[in-house]
């Protein structure tokens, strides 16, 4: 038995917005006046003033830590601004919570999706909506959602379980959640991070359709080409300040980059290829299964030579994490072999892998790479703490450790007062440098780098790229796992593409294109040889 409930709140909102007339297009849906928000020690938003027009796609561009997400969270009621005003549809609003924002028609899709994995798409969409009574008429709701999907051309299996959907589709569920409760204004925080290039194209075309129907969208990104592709206007932020809002048609990528970074940007450090050496790591016929015997990695064959970077491209969640875990030794393999310098190291424990010369940069530097509550010097010796060079007898020799740490801090340009400073006081770029300092210091044979530049600013990214190329040139083989295709193409000598735990393709970087790799990332293999 299903209790029928008419949801007055939902019914009051027009579901499908009608095409607008010319003057309506200039209409301002959201105005921010002098909004400031500070966190202890950081002024995240400094007197931001901004207009969003009805029906536009407005990009918020800036490096990590520029304050884009903070601004979005203020507009969504997560944070309360310290000062300043927000006007929505001409009226000043105070957003005490998400509920307030949602009831006004503001929706947000976060970088980390807020879905319930074991529940279906529909259940996720209706869960948490404001209902009177105790039941939900799922059939009515389904019809409503289907209508929205048809209107915009979104293809989504509504009765499937979330955890079985690819990440790109999960994002649509998040967007539908907002549209279902009548959002007219969407905040999208880095939505393209989980999509392949082809999916991005399709994603953008649907967003355009939505804006034509009157939806207004703020799209947060740090990728210049996306801004150029989709936005009507763009607002650039840097270090909490709004630098400028411009019509996208009037600017070039270079203009934007300069505004974003605050200085001329040398886009790429040069990657001069070097002839590769002998094979250092060889993975053959690798199979990995999870506890329920579901296949995680299938028939992986990879070879990394010295003086060579192999880029492993793929949408996140396609087995990169398992491959990383297998190579560093924290996950067991079901069959197949891993050879390091011809020596079989399959299923060796992490300490053996480390000792034999496998260095690694984990994708989540805070959760997997660092002891955040410990000082820099302890993080630099983590993993090599038993080396005799740090001891006198059985006890640590702090003088030796400090000298070693100071040297590494200088070599890697780590901005900190002393090795005693706790790492949780460092910026993202400096945290990554601590990891680089540690991993490079033991003369590795092979480096496994997963998302080495995620969340870093332009300067730090350049630095990490330079470090990786220098390390390669010094004779180390590198497997670079990254979701940033630009990074893969720039640094790699060969590109491999992983999809659902399988290597879809492998070829020299100069013989392929972003489009080809994008198709492989989506699991589409072209029939041509």
């Amino acid at each position: 038995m299903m209790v029928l409930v008419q949801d007055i709140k939902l019914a009051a909102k027009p579901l499908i917005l009608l095409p607008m007339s010319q003057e309506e297009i200039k209409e301002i849906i959201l105005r921010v006046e002098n909004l400031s928000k500070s966190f202890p020690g950081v002024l995240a938003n400094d007197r931001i003033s901004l207009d969003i027009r009805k029906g536009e796609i407005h990009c918020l561009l800036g490096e990590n830590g520029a304050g884009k997400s903070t601004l979005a969270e203020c507009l969504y009621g997560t944070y309360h601004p310290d000062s300043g005003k927000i006007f929505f549809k001409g009226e000043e609003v105070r957003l005490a919570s998400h509920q307030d924002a949602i009831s006004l028609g503001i929706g947000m899709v976060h970088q980390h999706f807020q879905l319930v994995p074991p529940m279906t798409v529909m259940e996720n969409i209706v869960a948490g909506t404001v209902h009177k009574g105790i039941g939900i008429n799922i059939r009515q709701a389904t019809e409503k959602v289907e209508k929205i999907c048809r209107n915009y051309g979104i293809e989504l299996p509504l009765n499937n379980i979330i955890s079985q959907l690819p990440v790109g589709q999960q994002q649509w569920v998040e967007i539908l959640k907002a549209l279902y409760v009548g959002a007219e204004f969407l905040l999208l925080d880095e939505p393209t991070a989980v999509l392949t290039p082809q999916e991005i194209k399709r994603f953008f075309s649907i967003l355009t359709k939505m804006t034509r129907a009157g939806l207004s969208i703020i799209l947060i990104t740090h990728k210049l080409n996306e801004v150029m592709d989709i936005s009507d206007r763009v607002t650039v932020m840097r270090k909490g300040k709004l630098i400028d809002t411009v019509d996208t048609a009037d600017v070039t990528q270079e203009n934007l980059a300069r505004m974003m970074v605050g200085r001329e940007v040398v886009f790429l450090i040069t990657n001069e290829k070097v002839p590769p050496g002998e094979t250092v790591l060889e993975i053959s016929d690798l199979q990995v299964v999870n506890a329920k015997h579901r296949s995680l990695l299938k028939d992986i064959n990879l070879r990394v030579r010295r003086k060579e970077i192999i880029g492993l491209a793929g949408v996140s969640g396609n087995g990169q994490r398992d491959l990383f875990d297998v190579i560093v030794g924290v996950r067991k393999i079901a069959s197949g072999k891993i050879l390091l310098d011809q020596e079989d190291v399959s299923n060796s424990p992490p300490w053996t892998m480390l000792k034999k010369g496998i260095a690694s940069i984990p994708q989540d530097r805070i959760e997997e790479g660092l002891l955040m509550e410990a000082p820099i010097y302890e993080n630099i010796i983590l993993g090599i703490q038993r080396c005799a060079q740090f001891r006198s007898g059985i006890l640590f020799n702090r003088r030796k450790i400090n000298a070693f740490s100071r040297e590494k801090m200088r070599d890697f340009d780590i901005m900190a007062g002393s090795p005693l400073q706790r790492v949780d006081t460092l910026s993202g770029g400096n945290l990554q440098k601590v990891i680089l300092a540690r991993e490079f210091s033991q003369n590795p044979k092979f480096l496994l780098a997963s998302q080495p530049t995620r969340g870093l600013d332009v300067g730090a990214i350049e630095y990490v790229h330079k470090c990786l190329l220098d390390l390669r040139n010094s004779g180390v083989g590198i497997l670079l796992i990254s979701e940033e295709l630009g990074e893969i193409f720039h640094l790699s000598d060969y590109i491999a593409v992983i999809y659902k735990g399988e290597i879809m393709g492998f070829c020299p970087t100069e013989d392929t294109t972003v489009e080809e790799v994008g198709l492989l990332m989506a699991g589409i293999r072209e029939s041509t040889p």
Partner: protein
Amino acid sequence: MISIFGLTLEPRKKTSIPLQTAAILVGLVAAFLVSAALIATAGANVFNALGYMFKGAYGDWDAFVETLVQATPLIFTGLAIVVAFRAKVFNIGAEGQFFAGAMAATWIGLHLTGLPGPVVWVLIIIGSIIAGGIWGFIPGILKATLGASEIITTVMLNYVILYIISYLLSGPWREPDQFYLQTAWFPDHCRFPAVVPLSRLHLGFIISLVLAAVVYLLLWKTPFGFEIRSIGINPRASRYKGIRIKKTLVLVMVISGAIAGLGGGSEIAGLHQQLRLDISTGYGYTAIIIALLGRLHPVGVIIVAIFFGGLVNGSTSMQINTGVPVALVHCIQGVVLIFVLTAEVLATYRIRRTEIDE
């Protein structure tokens, strides 16, 4: 972020050391006020009672020495907790490990009476270390191999050892022709020597201080100690960086148990000279409070243990003079823990008025 009654709690980015110290002091004052209220409800003059308590604990040299006697087992068990908690291994079994050590010490004291005193002392030290270590090893290996929660297993083993001892005391080990559940006394030459003449303060106190230094060196000056702390801070990163998590966890439990066991041995050999069920007033549990208040640092443990030893010691004189029951001490200890920990946590936040629309 938490909002309540128009106030919002916001995390601070950094909590300065003066602020932390102030927070602890505020917590202590608040705990003191609550304790005073408790004393008042017991029907005594608060100032009188607290005066006697202070005098009884630190009023003169003899009182202070007796306070150290009371602090000794707390230092041992507190250190045991420090080692375990630093690895985020929640050993709630220091009580049982303490009794395991006491059991071994008693057996040695009763059976190896033919040997010269110092030899017996050394044997008691070694024996109680081994016994406590075994009692720590069991939950350690269960955790490492089967993933059994050490919180459950250590608590259960506390009961196991108590029942074993109850059995021994009611039969095999019972002093012949005695009504009480206790073993025979072992000879005086097997007893730990006094370190302050004519007092009850014994060798165990010195051992506990040495042990505190050893624990400090172990945790902060050796690679193994670094690994222990590293697992406590971030087990995932530690695993990726090749630290042997399981092996370390087992060793941590063994070391923690051994320290608590040595505490039990020291109490037997230094004070009681016989095994009874009342040799501990919950030292293994109080140790958790002590270790947490001592910020999981050996020096902190010594300071807090002496403070708590003073509470125990002073409360006797308070009871004699004012009739306020000694049992109140445990209450005060708990109150101190709650207030100081709360104050410490609150110090990491700042309170702001929430802006509300009218």
